[in-house]
Each structure stands twice: as structure tokens, then as C-alpha cells.
């Protein structure tokens, strides 16, 4: 009978992703509530990376090994993980919701005739039933989800849903090497790279005024620029503004842009999708102006104004000039 929790620890070129330890924390908490053992799995060419994970409080670490696992490809990872899941027969397979996992986990779950309960922010066990909570509508609403199907249940957790420091250390888990077969790998990766140095480094500014789709048109950006100037700060944006070419990509804040922690972050017409929040949630003081009182950005804002930014910004700009004057 299926039993236990299998947690996938992700690394890139040997470096573990912080969200992997968050996933371990999630798996440990689930394991405690369900009284089921947690097994971690690391995919690589040999067991050299498994040791770092064995320091955590898990029943054992499976080191799934094959020369094709030197570099990530969805074909190789799916083949390898499928064998580990079949061999361990867990009830739950827990993974971090990273770009890498998004790329292969659905392919893996499809081999078990199902999808993934993706991008969860919580899991609560009552008896032997687990309710997963996930954000829908770009973070505006939460949905509680249960699986009525056969195990295994595949679930991924959003970055920040659990804290990596919560992952309990142990006394050195046993490492089990598991040679796995990998079929034809159709995708050929080239080396990962970063674009040439960004022209604007927003990580060093104290004040950021960021605009989102609520700014409506490129012409209106001048209004936000005026506020940024009054505050002595820099202009930044959510992704759709840069996608539309209204501001260059080096002004984008978020998971695929810059991560900043200024003293003051003013979000104008930004809804607060998780991919934006991860780039700015550590700012000192966060101000949000949004006409939707339920906008998720308010969940992390210190000060909020529910209203039309086109009414707020001119007054705010004048007031700040006056106070500074």
C-alpha cells in the first residue's frame, strides 16, 4: 500500500535551490501530521549532492543516478523521477513550484494519469485527508483542493509558503543510491547565461515608485515619474508594462526581473501577483494605491489607498513637494 511522502530537492549545477528546503519543511510538517515518513530524492550523476540533503531530518535520501542527469532536461528528469515514484510508492510527492519543476512535474504526473496540485500555499491534514490551498486568479482568491483519486498525489509549493529555516535538521539520514534508466533525451540544453549587465540597478535606490497595468497608457507614465522625482526615487514597473515596451525590462520588478528592498516602495495600479511580490516584499515601507479593495498587494502594504491612482498621484506629488519644500 502507498505510504510516505517523497520530496524532490532541486539543484542547478550542484547548488540547491532555497525553495527545495522550503519543500522539505512542507513535507516534514505533512509527515508529522500524517505520521508518515519523509523520503527526499536528489537526481544527479552520483551521490555527491545527496549528502547536503541527508543533513535534514528525513527517513532517507534517494540518490537517483544516471549520466544523463548531469544537466536538467524534462525527458531525463521525468524518466528518473517516474522510477523513483514507482519504487517508493508514496502517498504524496512534494516539490517546490520553481521554473524547473513547472517544466517537468506535469509530464511526470501525466505518467500517473493525473495533473499536479500546483503552486500551493498551505496544506492541512485532518485525519488522513489533506486539504491543499492554492492561489487562483493571480493571487486574488484562495481555493481549497482535495484529491479524490488514487495516490500518489503530486503537489508543488509556492516560494515562501514555508520557510527554509523551518526545515528540521537530523542526525544524518541514510543515502540510498538508485541507478535509474533514462530513455532518449530529445532536448539539448546550452549553457545558462545572464543578459549583459543591466543599465539600471534598482537594488541600490532608497525609493521606488512602481507602476502596473493600472497606469493604462504610456503617456500616463509621466505622472508616476513626477511622483518619483518629488520623492527623489526611481521608476520601476510590473511585467506587463515592460512586456508592452512602455519601460525597458531593466525596470521590471519580480521573479523574472530585479529583486529590490528599498526604504519606500510605492505600488501604483499593481495587483500584487506572487511573481511581482517576490521581487519587492522586503521593502521597508510599502504603499499601495489600487481601486480594487481586494487587490492582493494590500496584503503586504503598510499604507493603502483604495482609489483611482489618477486622483491620488497628483495630490500626493504636490503634498510631498510641499512637505519637502
Amino acid at each position: 500500500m502507498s505510504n510516505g511522502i517523497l520530496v524532490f530537492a532541486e539543484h542547478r549545477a550542484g547548488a540547491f535551490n532555497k525553495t527545495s528546503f522550503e519543500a522539505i519543511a512542507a513535507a516534514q510538517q505533512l509527515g508529522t501530521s500524517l505520521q508518515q515518513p519523509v523520503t527526499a530524492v536528489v537526481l544527479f550523476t552520483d551521490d555527491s549532492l545527496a549528502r547536503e540533503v541527508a543533513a535534514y531530518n528525513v527517513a532517507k535520501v534517494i540518490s537517483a543516478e544516471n549520466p544523463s542527469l548531469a544537466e536538467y532536461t524534462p525527458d531525463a528528469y521525468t524518466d528518473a523521477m517516474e522510477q523513483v515514484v514507482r519504487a517508493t510508492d508514496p502517498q504524496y510527492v512534494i516539490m517546490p513550484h520553481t521554473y524547473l519543476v513547472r517544466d517537468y512535474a506535469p509530464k511526470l504526473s501525466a505518467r500517473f494519469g493525473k495533473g499536479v496540485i500546483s503552486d500551493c500555499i498551505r496544506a492541512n491534514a485532518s485525519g488522513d485527508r489533506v486539504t491543499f490551498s492554492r492561489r487562483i486568479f493571480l493571487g486574488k482568491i484562495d481555493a481549497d483542493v482535495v484529491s479524490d483519486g488514487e495516490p500518489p498525489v503530486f503537489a508543488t509549493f509556492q516560494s515562501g509558503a514555508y520557510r527554509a529555516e523551518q526545515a528540521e535538521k537530523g542526525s544524518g539520514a541514510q543515502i540510498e543510491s538508485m541507478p535509474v534508466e533514462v530513455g532518449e533525451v530529445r532536448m539539448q540544453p546550452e549553457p545558462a547565461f545572464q543578459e549583459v549587465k543591466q543599465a539600471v540597478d534598482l537594488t541600490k535606490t532608497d525609493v521606488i515608485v512602481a507602476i502596473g497595468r493600472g497606469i493604462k497608457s504610456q503617456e500616463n507614465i509621466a505622472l508616476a515619474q513626477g511622483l518619483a522625482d518629488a520623492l527623489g526615487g526611481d521608476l520601476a514597473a510590473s511585467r506587463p508594462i515592460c512586456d508592452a515596451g512602455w519601460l525597458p525590462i531593466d525596470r521590471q520588478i519580480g521573479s523574472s526581473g530585479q529583486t529590490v528592498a528599498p526604504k519606500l516602495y510605492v505600488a501604483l495600479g499593481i495587483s500584487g501577483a506572487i511573481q511581482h511580490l517576490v521581487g519587492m516584499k522586503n521593502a521597508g515601507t510599502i504603499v499601495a494605491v489600487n481601486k480594487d479593495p481586494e487587490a492582493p498587494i494590500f496584503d503586504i502594504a503598510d499604507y493603502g489607498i483604495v482609489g483611482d491612482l489618477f486622483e491620488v498621484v497628483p495630490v500626493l506629488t504636490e503634498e510631498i513637494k510641499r512637505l519637502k519644500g
Partner: protein
Amino acid sequence: MKIIVLMKQVGNKDAILRINRDETWIEEGDLSFEVNESDGYALEEALRLREKHGGEVVVCSMGPQRVKSVIKDALARGADRAIHIAGDDLAHVGPFASATILAEAIHGEQPDLVLTGLQSDDYGFAQTGVILAELLKFPHATIVIEVDASGERLRVKRELESGWYQWYSMPTPALLTIQSGISQIRYATLKGIMAAKKKEIREVTPSAEALSGAAQHQRVTKIYFPLKTKQTQFLGNGDAKAGAAQLAEKLRTEARVI
């Protein structure tokens, strides 16, 4: 090159959402609908690839009759023809079932490329495309921001986290999930809108077998607005201008940032 673009219709992003009586979904009665953002970019990429390499762009959308507006808009922007998988509840079947139904509908088309957005703005599963690739036995890549189809193998640039990128190559047929911003989206022209009226929209319904794949591997028991964890000080109490004045004062005296 034959390209199929999967496009989903979702609620308008600017809409104020209300939760329905059963607490299982939102009130759709007062919603207006639009195309899922990244799917719009997937169509644009398909049109550009056709301009460069020739071939055909076929749009496929599933859902109730209202999704025809997404299809018509795609045809007006330049897609050649469309497949509409019709069914009232198809928006709620879960990613594996969606992929199964889509696979059935497009299988006979034998496309060289299937493009879709990287995730939907409503359920946000971020997996229908990848599962479909597995069902069709196609190689795939996700979060794609550039496509080079000029060589023997397809080359795609993928976005990784925190400013990293990576190129992957693979044989065709392949499936790619496209990231928003891959290129600038064109609008439909009047000529395009007129031309679209003559284009074929083939309506199909899923087989009972494909639908039975809709076994509930993830059943929504309840939806609700997230519990707020931070005490936000709301200013102005509905008066935006008063709020602005109060905010300036607070930024000086409390937050001490000016």
C-alpha cells in the same frame, strides 16, 4: 509549418471578483471575458513564425459558446482557421482532463508545432501544455521567450529565475508554452475582421472517453478571499485625495521616508 495555438478565455483581469453561492467559483454572470494573456502572445508568435516560414496557423479553444469571441478575434488577427471544442463545463475539468480532450481534438491535425500560454490567469495550473506534450509524445519547453525555427532543430530561449536564460534545441513536432512579452501583439485590422468572417470554425465535442479522464484528482471544495496577514493602514476612507494628503503626512512622521 503547421502550428496549432491553444487559447483559453478567462475573466477580465480588471473585474472585481465575487464568489458564488456554493463558494466553488466566482460569479460569472457579471463578468466580461477576454483571452488569457500569455495565449495572446502564443498566437502572435505563431503568426510571426508563419510569416517567416510559411504554413498554417490553427487556433483551438475549448469552452462554452462564449469562447467564439476569442476565436473570432484570433482569426481577425490572422489565424487561418479554428477548432472549437464545445462544452459548458470544460473550463472546470482540471489540467489532465483538459489535455486529454485537447489531444483528442488536435491529434488528427498532425501539427509541427503546438503553442500555448505558460499558464492561465484564472486557475493558474501551469501544466495543461506540458501534459498535452506528454500525451502527444512531443518534446516540449516552457516559459519560452524566443523561438528560432530556421534550422534543422527547433531552438528556443527559456526564461529561468532571477534574470537567467537558457537555449534548448529539440526536434519537431514540439510543444512550447510561451511567456508574455515574447513580442508586441498586433491588433486586428478592419480587413482582418472582414476576412475572418469567411474562415472555418470547426466545432467538435469531446468523446465520452476523453471526458471520463476528468476523474477528480483535484476537486475544489471551497474558494475564499485570502486571509489578510498584515495590518494595512487604509487612508482616505474612499476619498482618494484626502488619502493622498494623509499618506504624505504619514510618510514623513511615521515611516520617516521623506
